[in-house]
Protein backbone atom coordinates (compact mmCIF):
# COMPACT_ATOMS: atom_id res chain seq x y z
CA UNK A 1 0.00 0.00 0.00
CA UNK A 2 1.00 3.61 -0.54
CA UNK A 3 2.08 5.59 2.53
CA UNK A 4 2.12 9.40 2.55
CA UNK A 5 3.75 11.74 5.06
CA UNK A 6 3.11 15.45 5.50
CA UNK A 7 4.62 18.50 7.25
CA UNK A 8 7.20 17.82 9.99
CA UNK A 9 6.57 14.10 9.73
CA UNK A 10 7.66 14.21 6.08
CA UNK A 11 10.71 16.30 7.01
CA UNK A 12 11.79 14.01 9.85
CA UNK A 13 11.45 10.91 7.71
CA UNK A 14 13.04 12.70 4.79
CA UNK A 15 10.48 11.29 2.37
CA UNK A 16 6.95 12.21 1.32
CA UNK A 17 5.79 8.83 0.19
CA UNK A 18 6.72 5.18 -0.09
CA UNK A 19 5.14 1.84 -0.87
CA UNK A 20 4.99 -0.87 1.77
CA UNK A 21 3.88 -4.51 1.71
CA UNK A 22 3.05 -5.46 5.30
CA UNK A 23 2.53 -9.13 6.22
CA UNK A 24 -1.01 -10.46 6.66
CA UNK A 25 -1.05 -10.18 10.44
CA UNK A 26 -0.83 -6.38 10.09
CA UNK A 27 -4.55 -5.60 10.06
CA UNK A 28 -5.00 -2.20 11.77
CA UNK A 29 -3.26 1.15 11.58
CA UNK A 30 -1.65 0.49 14.98
CA UNK A 31 -0.31 -2.83 13.63
CA UNK A 32 1.12 -1.02 10.61
CA UNK A 33 2.82 1.61 12.75
CA UNK A 34 4.30 -1.09 14.99
CA UNK A 35 5.54 -3.07 11.99
CA UNK A 36 7.05 0.01 10.32
CA UNK A 37 8.75 1.16 13.53
CA UNK A 38 10.29 -2.30 13.99
CA UNK A 39 11.89 -2.11 10.55
CA UNK A 40 12.94 1.53 10.55
CA UNK A 41 14.53 3.48 13.38
CA UNK A 42 13.70 6.81 11.72
CA UNK A 43 10.06 5.87 11.72
CA UNK A 44 10.14 4.93 15.37
CA UNK A 45 11.59 8.34 16.29
CA UNK A 46 9.21 10.28 14.06
CA UNK A 47 6.21 8.41 15.46
CA UNK A 48 7.32 8.63 19.08
CA UNK A 49 4.24 10.53 20.24
CA UNK A 50 1.53 8.70 18.36
CA UNK A 51 -1.26 10.73 19.93
CA UNK A 52 0.07 13.71 17.95
CA UNK A 53 -0.27 11.92 14.65
CA UNK A 54 -3.41 11.89 12.59
CA UNK A 55 -4.19 9.29 9.98
CA UNK A 56 -6.27 9.18 6.81
CA UNK A 57 -7.22 5.99 4.97
CA UNK A 58 -8.01 6.72 1.33
CA UNK A 59 -8.42 10.41 2.25
CA UNK A 60 -10.77 9.91 5.20
CA UNK A 61 -9.58 10.73 8.69
CA UNK A 62 -9.81 7.68 10.93
CA UNK A 63 -8.68 6.52 14.39
CA UNK A 64 -5.52 4.48 14.84
CA UNK A 65 -7.45 1.34 15.72
CA UNK A 66 -9.20 1.28 12.34
CA UNK A 67 -8.65 -1.84 10.19
CA UNK A 68 -6.66 -1.20 7.03
CA UNK A 69 -9.20 -3.20 5.00
CA UNK A 70 -8.85 -2.68 1.27
CA UNK A 71 -7.42 0.84 1.59
CA UNK A 72 -4.93 1.74 -1.14
CA UNK A 73 -3.41 4.81 0.55
CA UNK A 74 -2.63 5.70 4.13
CA UNK A 75 -1.50 9.19 5.10
CA UNK A 76 0.21 10.23 8.34
CA UNK A 77 0.35 13.87 9.39
CA UNK A 78 0.40 16.27 12.36
CA UNK A 79 -2.75 18.15 13.44
CA UNK A 80 -3.87 20.41 10.62
CA UNK A 81 -3.23 24.14 10.63
CA UNK A 82 -4.87 25.49 7.50
CA UNK A 83 -7.07 28.52 7.03
Amino acid at each position, binding site marked *: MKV*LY*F*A*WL*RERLNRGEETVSPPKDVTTIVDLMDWMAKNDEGFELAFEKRSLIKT*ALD*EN*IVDHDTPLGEAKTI*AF*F*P*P*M*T*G*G
Partner: protein
Amino acid sequence: MSTIVRLQNEIFDPGQESNAFLKDETQAGAAVTFTGIVRSNAKAPITSLTLEHYPPMAQAQLEGFATKASERFELQKICVIHRYGKMLPGEPIVQVMTLAPHRRAAFEGAEFIMDFLKTSAPFWKKETGINGEVWVEAKTHDDDAMDRWS
Protein backbone atom coordinates in the same frame (compact mmCIF):
# COMPACT_ATOMS: atom_id res chain seq x y z
CA MET B 1 -27.35 25.80 -4.30
CA SER B 2 -24.05 26.20 -6.07
CA THR B 3 -20.69 25.41 -4.53
CA ILE B 4 -17.23 26.20 -5.77
CA VAL B 5 -14.03 24.99 -4.07
CA ARG B 6 -10.73 26.18 -5.50
CA LEU B 7 -7.26 25.17 -4.37
CA GLN B 8 -4.54 27.28 -5.91
CA ASN B 9 -0.96 28.35 -5.58
CA GLU B 10 -1.47 31.78 -7.19
CA ILE B 11 -2.43 34.82 -5.16
CA PHE B 12 -6.04 35.99 -5.55
CA ASP B 13 -7.69 39.39 -5.26
CA PRO B 14 -10.15 39.28 -2.30
CA GLY B 15 -12.41 42.08 -3.54
CA GLN B 16 -12.46 40.83 -7.10
CA GLU B 17 -13.47 37.37 -5.88
CA SER B 18 -16.27 38.90 -3.75
CA ASN B 19 -17.57 40.86 -6.70
CA ALA B 20 -17.50 37.80 -8.97
CA PHE B 21 -19.38 35.91 -6.26
CA LEU B 22 -22.05 38.63 -5.96
CA LYS B 23 -22.42 39.33 -9.67
CA ASP B 24 -26.01 39.30 -10.94
CA GLU B 25 -27.43 38.09 -7.63
CA THR B 26 -30.81 39.70 -6.96
CA GLN B 27 -32.52 36.89 -5.03
CA ALA B 28 -30.20 36.97 -2.03
CA GLY B 29 -30.15 39.60 0.67
CA ALA B 30 -26.97 38.77 2.56
CA ALA B 31 -23.39 37.96 1.64
CA VAL B 32 -20.53 37.22 4.03
CA THR B 33 -16.89 37.05 3.03
CA PHE B 34 -14.20 35.78 5.35
CA THR B 35 -10.62 36.47 4.31
CA GLY B 36 -7.67 34.95 6.12
CA ILE B 37 -4.48 36.97 5.76
CA VAL B 38 -0.82 36.06 6.30
CA ARG B 39 -0.04 37.81 9.54
CA SER B 40 3.32 39.06 10.69
CA ASN B 41 3.52 40.01 14.34
CA ALA B 42 5.66 43.01 15.17
CA LYS B 43 7.29 40.92 17.93
CA ALA B 44 8.02 37.86 15.79
CA PRO B 45 8.03 39.03 12.19
CA ILE B 46 7.89 36.40 9.49
CA THR B 47 9.27 36.77 6.02
CA SER B 48 7.02 34.16 4.43
CA LEU B 49 4.49 31.44 5.11
CA THR B 50 4.44 28.12 3.27
CA LEU B 51 1.38 25.92 3.15
CA GLU B 52 1.76 22.24 2.48
CA HIS B 53 -1.38 20.32 1.59
CA TYR B 54 -2.72 16.90 0.62
CA PRO B 55 -4.42 17.82 -2.65
CA PRO B 56 -7.20 15.26 -3.29
CA MET B 57 -8.14 15.08 0.37
CA ALA B 58 -8.10 18.87 0.79
CA GLN B 59 -10.45 19.27 -2.17
CA ALA B 60 -12.77 16.51 -0.91
CA GLN B 61 -12.82 17.83 2.67
CA LEU B 62 -13.57 21.41 1.64
CA GLU B 63 -16.38 20.23 -0.64
CA GLY B 64 -17.69 18.14 2.25
CA PHE B 65 -17.73 21.10 4.67
CA ALA B 66 -19.53 23.22 2.07
CA THR B 67 -22.17 20.50 1.61
CA LYS B 68 -22.64 20.19 5.37
CA ALA B 69 -23.02 23.96 5.67
CA SER B 70 -25.59 24.05 2.88
CA GLU B 71 -27.61 21.29 4.55
CA ARG B 72 -27.53 23.04 7.88
CA PHE B 73 -28.10 26.67 6.91
CA GLU B 74 -30.28 28.26 4.25
CA LEU B 75 -27.52 29.14 1.80
CA GLN B 76 -27.83 29.93 -1.89
CA LYS B 77 -24.19 29.85 -2.86
CA ILE B 78 -20.82 28.97 -1.33
CA CYS B 79 -17.32 29.61 -2.57
CA VAL B 80 -14.11 28.50 -0.84
CA ILE B 81 -10.68 29.48 -2.13
CA HIS B 82 -7.60 28.12 -0.36
CA ARG B 83 -4.01 28.69 -1.38
CA TYR B 84 -1.00 26.45 -0.93
CA GLY B 85 2.71 27.05 -1.40
CA LYS B 86 4.66 30.14 -0.41
CA MET B 87 3.02 33.45 0.48
CA LEU B 88 4.03 36.78 1.99
CA PRO B 89 2.70 38.82 4.94
CA GLY B 90 -0.46 40.70 3.97
CA GLU B 91 -1.37 38.22 1.25
CA PRO B 92 -4.68 36.34 1.44
CA ILE B 93 -4.48 32.63 2.31
CA VAL B 94 -8.12 31.65 2.32
CA GLN B 95 -11.48 33.15 1.43
CA VAL B 96 -14.90 31.74 2.27
CA MET B 97 -17.99 33.38 0.79
CA THR B 98 -21.63 32.64 1.52
CA LEU B 99 -24.81 34.02 0.04
CA ALA B 100 -28.18 33.65 1.77
CA PRO B 101 -31.63 35.20 1.98
CA HIS B 102 -30.89 36.33 5.54
CA ARG B 103 -27.75 37.50 7.31
CA ARG B 104 -27.74 34.97 10.13
CA ALA B 105 -27.42 32.01 7.75
CA ALA B 106 -24.70 33.78 5.75
CA PHE B 107 -22.67 34.50 8.91
CA GLU B 108 -23.14 31.05 10.40
CA GLY B 109 -22.42 29.24 7.15
CA ALA B 110 -19.11 31.06 6.69
CA GLU B 111 -18.06 30.57 10.31
CA PHE B 112 -19.04 26.88 10.23
CA ILE B 113 -16.91 26.26 7.14
CA MET B 114 -13.94 28.15 8.63
CA ASP B 115 -14.16 26.24 11.93
CA PHE B 116 -14.11 22.89 10.14
CA LEU B 117 -11.46 24.00 7.72
CA LYS B 118 -9.09 25.06 10.52
CA THR B 119 -9.10 21.69 12.23
CA SER B 120 -9.99 19.18 9.54
CA ALA B 121 -8.69 20.31 6.16
CA PRO B 122 -5.26 18.83 5.39
CA PHE B 123 -3.11 21.97 5.27
CA TRP B 124 -0.01 22.65 7.32
CA LYS B 125 1.59 26.05 7.84
CA LYS B 126 5.29 26.66 8.12
CA GLU B 127 6.54 30.12 9.05
CA THR B 128 9.86 31.41 7.80
CA GLY B 129 11.45 34.17 9.89
CA ILE B 130 14.90 35.56 10.50
CA ASN B 131 15.62 32.69 12.91
CA GLY B 132 14.66 29.94 10.51
CA GLU B 133 11.61 27.87 9.79
CA VAL B 134 9.00 26.56 12.19
CA TRP B 135 5.82 24.50 11.73
CA VAL B 136 2.81 26.25 13.20
CA GLU B 137 1.22 24.31 16.06
CA ALA B 138 -2.47 23.45 16.05
CA LYS B 139 -4.53 25.44 18.55
CA THR B 140 -6.92 23.82 21.00
CA HIS B 141 -9.30 26.77 20.69
CA ASP B 142 -9.76 25.80 17.07
CA ASP B 143 -10.96 22.37 18.19
CA ASP B 144 -13.31 24.06 20.63
CA ALA B 145 -14.62 26.27 17.84
CA MET B 146 -15.43 23.22 15.74
CA ASP B 147 -17.00 21.35 18.64
CA ARG B 148 -19.65 24.01 19.22
CA TRP B 149 -21.39 22.95 15.98
CA SER B 150 -21.91 19.38 17.16
